[in-house]
């Protein structure tokens, strides 16, 4: 598999790896994908409650280089955007920026899903004030 230089750059120098406190009411967490499918992305946003702007974004990804790059790029793009602007990020934007080949488009789809899940989680928290909840929970 030949990777584009941008994918390699994100893989070697991933931006914003890490975790934000899940329980913080201003933090939204998205956890998408499945281990048996070969990729899982956790993406978190921290929203400034006064401005509605995303102050910080972090990710952790289990997946191929393109999956890592897609989520790393997503965190870069999220910072400084309002929640609504964030929701406008499309997987095709990620495909174009990283020059992903057709077999890797699902990585960008997963990144878009992760953004939507994180924002969704944040909105849910805002709606239900203090019931902090992550998107995926152990069923047991």
């Amino acid at each position, binding site marked *: *598999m030949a*990777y584009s230089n941008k994918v*390699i750059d994100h*893989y070697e120098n*991933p931006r914003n*790896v890490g*975790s934000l406190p899940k329980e913080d009411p201003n933090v939204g967490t998205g*956890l*998408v*994908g*499945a*281990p*048996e*499918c*070969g*990729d*899982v*992305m*956790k993406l978190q946003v921290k929203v400034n409650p006064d401005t509605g702007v995303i102050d910080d974004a972090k990710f*952790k*990804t*289990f*997946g*191929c*280089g393109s*999956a*890592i790059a897609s989520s790393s790029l997503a965190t870069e793009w999220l910072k400084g955007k309002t929640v609504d602007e964030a929701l406008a990020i499309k997987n095709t934007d990620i495909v174009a920026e990283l020059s992903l080949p057709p*077999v*890797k488009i*699902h990585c960008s*789809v*997963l990144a878009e*899903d992760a953004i939507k899940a994180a924002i969704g989680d944040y909105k849910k928290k805002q709606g239900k004030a203090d019931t902090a909840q992550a998107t*995926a*929970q*152990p*069923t*047991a």
Partner: protein
Amino acid sequence: MAIKLPIYMDYHATTPADPRVVEAMLPYFTEHFGNAASRNHPFGWEAEEAVDTARKQVADLIGANAKEIVFTSGATESNNLAIKGVAEMYREKGNHIITAVTEHKAVIDTCKRLEKEGYRVTYLPVQKNGLISLDDLRNAISDKTILISIMTANNEIGVIQPIAEIGAIAKEKAILFHTDAVQAAGKIPFNVNELKVDLVSISAHKMYGPKGVGALYVRRRNPRVLLAPQIDGGGHERGMRSGTLNVTGIVGMGKAAELCRQEMARDAARLSGLRDRLSERLHTGLDEIFVNGSVEHRLPHSLNISFAYVEGESLLMGINDVAVSSGSACTSASLEPSYVLKALGAGDDLAHSSIRFGLGRWTTEEEVDYVADKLINVVTRLREMSPLYELAKEGVDLSTMQWEVH
């Protein structure tokens, strides 16, 4: 000593030709270019003599008689010829074939085609260690069974099946027994009579010979195995495989077989030492890594490890100056991990996290240490980036999580 990069550690995929093999082949491209089937001039005789020598060298490697060796274009063809050849020839006797789920595609897909033509195929499962169960085999046999095809050593995990025991069962039931010995031949002792096998596929490029040449051992006595040819033509190779012989390739395969026979014990001892060194270093430097398949019943130069919580392709990307294979095939929306690892019940996540290491004749200790150190670094880095590792460290049981499967 400085190491030369990239490092090749994928000897199961193919091996470089030994320089001594290449040297033996060279005159047969130019000086001795004759057609081994030309019976009426010295050019043909020379070529035929060279083929006869090679036939003996290949036969000696597996304890066979030279007359029992049929040269082919490789083990894919040998597997096709063995299985289709028996199926067609013994159709009157029965239509049932027994094989295993972890076989190479050249066996599985050949069997799949025969199923379309009305044959019945049993694909035996394997146990967690990668071995078939002899009880399963016995239970699968019926009076319609004409062939058992079980590989000697697996190409992904290096696990060695109980061939002698299977041979004894096949003999007792008077069923023909084929084994794909591509990964084992030249690497571990293999004798067709001790193992009671009737058909054996081997390939030159997996034992330091050239690509595009292989052989099928076809037993001539007790019992005499008959095959319906799958390629028709001039009746070469006792009518079982027509086509002008690839004399240069065959000479190379012969030389490769001879070298393997002479150097096998030394190579195996050295490589199992290096393989164990690699395994120990990785186990010391990393937690949560698992060897796939039996450690005991394994080729001396093979190691397949799952690095939990790290995906295989990203792992390969981090060690891009080391040539190895991954059990993960992250290339489509339906990410299919290795069917061999799945068959072990490894769990798809661990299958996605696996790397196959194949050591060989030119692997050095320095290379092993370089690969071990590099992997420890990359796995550590990727785990810091892995949400699964984080969850596991928080004490979450990943198998009880509800994942949104796309």
